[in-house]
């Protein structure tokens, strides 16, 4: 098994590692870097639980090898908050509207939503559903997730949305 040196930036920190060619990116993040917020759900690219931001795009880390991420800049769920111990607006909206239950798909949902909100702060419901359409959730039926992303879009775009008005 060939091994390869890689260097990449994850959540603002630079890592160098030597990895086997067959090590997937999700296993590298979880097992080598111990960033266990990213989850492996199906390992064949359908469920989206392993989604990360790679150079700004939401991608499935189970469908990439770690070696392919050499030189990349990655954000995982652990890197979404502006600083340790805080929550991003998007994360806070997920909490406020209970846009999760078991939480297993949640990191991938947040990544998909973050990717959408980076492009548009006024997405339609259909655009939101498209953005999370590749992320499976078995608990929520998606409704509270869609509403949380709508709320986050409104808050981030500076529209004045009071707390707790979506109950």
């Amino acid at each position, binding site marked *: 098994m060939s091994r390869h040196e890689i260097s990449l930036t994850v959540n603002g920190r630079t890592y160098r590692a030597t990895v086997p060619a*067959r*090590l997937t990116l999700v296993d590298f993040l*979880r*097992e080598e870097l*111990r*960033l*266990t*917020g*990213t*989850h*492996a*759900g*199906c*390992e*064949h690219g*359908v*469920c989206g*639980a392993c989604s990360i931001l790679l150079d700004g795009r939401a991608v499935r880390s189970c469908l990439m090898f770690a070696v392919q991420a050499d030189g990349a800049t990655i954000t*995982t*769920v*652990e890197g*979404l*908050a502006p600083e340790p111990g805080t*929550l991003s607006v998007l*994360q806070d909206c*997920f*909490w*406020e*509207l*209970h846009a*999760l*239950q*078991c*939480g*297993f*798909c*949640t*990191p991938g949902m*947040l990544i998909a939503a973050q990717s959408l909100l980076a492009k548009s702060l006024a997405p339609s*419901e259909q655009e*939101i*559903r*498209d953005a*999370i*359409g*590749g*992320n*499976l*959730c*078995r*608990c*929520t*039926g*998606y*409704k*509270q*997730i*869609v509403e949380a992303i709508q709320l986050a879009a409104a808050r981030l775009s500076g529209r004045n949305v009071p707390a*707790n008005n979506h*109950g």
Partner: protein
Amino acid sequence: MAESAFRYIAKKRRPKEDRRFIAGAARYVADVALPGMLHVALVASPYPFARIRGIDARAALGLPGVRAVVTGADLVAATDAMMSGLDAPKLRRYPLAHQLARYVGEWVAAVVAESRAVAEDAAELVEVDYQPLMPVIDPEAAIKPEAPIVHPDHGSNVLFRKKWVWGPVAEDFAASDHRLAFRARWHRSSTVPIETFGVVAAWDHARQLLDIWASIQMPKYPDQLARALRLPGNAVRVHFDVDVGGSYGVKRGLKHSILAGFIARQLGVPVRLLEDRLENMRGGDAQGPDRIFDIEVAFSKEGIIRALKIRALDDCGAHAGRAPLQLGKPVGAICGPYRVNSVEYEAISVTTNKTPQEAVRGFGQSPTNFALETMMDRVAAHLGLDRIALRRANLIAKDQFPYTIPSGSTYDSGDYHTVLEKALNAADLPALLRQRDGARAAGKLAGIGIACCLEPSGGNSAFEPLFNPKNETTTWMEACSIKIDLYGAVVVSMNTSSSGQGHETLAATVVGEVLERDPETVRVVRADSLSALPSNSPVGSRMAIMLGGAAAGAAKKLKESILAIAAKKLGAPVSELVYQNGDVALRQDPAKKISWDAIAEIAHRKFHELPEGMEPGLQATHVLEVPTGGTLPAADGRVQMYPCYAFETHIVYAEIDRITGQVSLGRYVVGHDCGTMINPDIVHGMTYGGIAHGIGAALYERFRYDDTGQLVSGTFMDYLIPSAHEVPNVEIVDHCTPSPLTAFGQKGSGEAGYLGAPAAISGAVNDALSPLGLKLAELPMTPGLLGDLIATADSKHK
């Protein structure tokens, strides 16, 4: 009890546990990493039925990094067979196949190595010598005399068969104007959580203790695990502070855990077994009900249902487990929300060469509800009556509660007519009908579905003694303990893991309500199985009732202690005291009072100020028996199956693409009454999710086997889980009929949505198909199935 009577209950409050999930800081079993931990990969049978003549592991063991290869013979020698829910001692089941492999994907050997990758490499090198046998795949074929026998020692593929008759069924059929018979088919699907099952086991030789972290949702899991491993219960410590990535019933994983525990003990090294997706789908023993209903119904010309005969044949797969009992729970709601005078129910559980079943959300009730609602639609069509009017005429009326059905279960409370009307109003039925008729006029296939269904809740395990008289279970208790520390901080301890149901919020809200303390300030922790009080895990929509009730019980005991301490300190009887926000004052002289903090300090430091006979400290426990529990089934099978009954009405609009057979759902309204909602966001979330799951069961999800017994839908490319595109924007209309049996009027709600969605969607599809003269009682109604039916009908019309 009116909701406004509450301070924290029934209010919008942020769930306590959500924060760790959105921060990516939860701890699932796959996040548990122990030093020196080894990894397991599995060798799976490629045959549905085969004799195992030999296993050659030499090449695998020769691979660097491989530490062991375990086979069924090792487990048969060192562990006890897993228990089934039946009185059938010759149905022996071990984590690995022994002598016979009984389904495709069954685990035949386990490879233990220093990494999962090496374990998988080695698993490919294990040579198994199989002698293929003729399998039996179809459940109706399995009960024919010439069928291959899946468990030769048992001697028959019939695992359980019993017919109960409750009331004058024959007389009612003879006396009725009309009779109707039909078959309904619920194909095999399951809950399929996004997290697969996993377990980490570590044997501590110095302490003689097996530590277990598992993705678990299973009653009596620690007991059964210890028993199978031939260890005393106090030598197995199951850690309940593991976040479970979805379960909805299936995360039982006993075989995985026995295997991991055995390996960890054998090697003296921590071991991790994580299913990959294929192992989960075909070898995880977690598929769901696979049921054929034959229904006969007798009714008057006005459409009043008088009597029912239901024959339910269920294919539980290659091992019994608790699967046959999923035919038992529906006994407690066997006629749904309707007044029916008499019922005959025959339950038949058969074994075939397919993956075993596990408990699935609703434990057999959703298939039964689908069959009952199909019946209501067929009766209406038979008589030319309106489907909704027919339901109105048969629903149990508000003033008839408590209402006892023929099978002996009493429904606690309900207002079904009002919930139905509220849902119809919210859905704007006239507008929906106009939309449907307009779509039809434009040549589309459009329909409206309606379903009125029950969600029995409370998780009394009365189907156990019903299906196995040697099992005299009459309690399914839940416990909670609370302590208030020296400085007044509250810690609540619960006794199971959770898989998304928000139990920390539930417990904190209830305790906050009783003690009048902000739930934000209440810490909820989880005991491990050695420190836990008796508990039966979050199954059967029971935790609002049972954990909520136990937490309320413990909090009330604490409040009594607080009042007793205050009474002594203030020199007045409790009857003259007022409790407010945890502080206590004299009713007549409110200036004379003692604070929460001072009472806590007395309890922890000042024994001389405690009432005589009171223990120091401030703590209480409560172990709650299921309301209405405590009674064995009667000889004729009549039984109080569950205590509380939630009700839901679904109304859904659907259109079917004539060419592709794809169903798209439009307006979807559900009227829901589960009594008092402790946290409405949590209840609503589970209901939305249950509907999404029901959409999958109705339209997409099926573990499909070909004629040779190969599973052909073992990935997410072919076992289709609804995405945000398939699930519409569901609207819930709440109603609250409190239960008289529970602490705050709450009923269960964890299975809500799933119990009615398949029935309602089936109704909508059938309404859409009706202009073609088609009717279909088979789920899932996949695009392929519908497309072919429509094409055939269209070609006949042309």
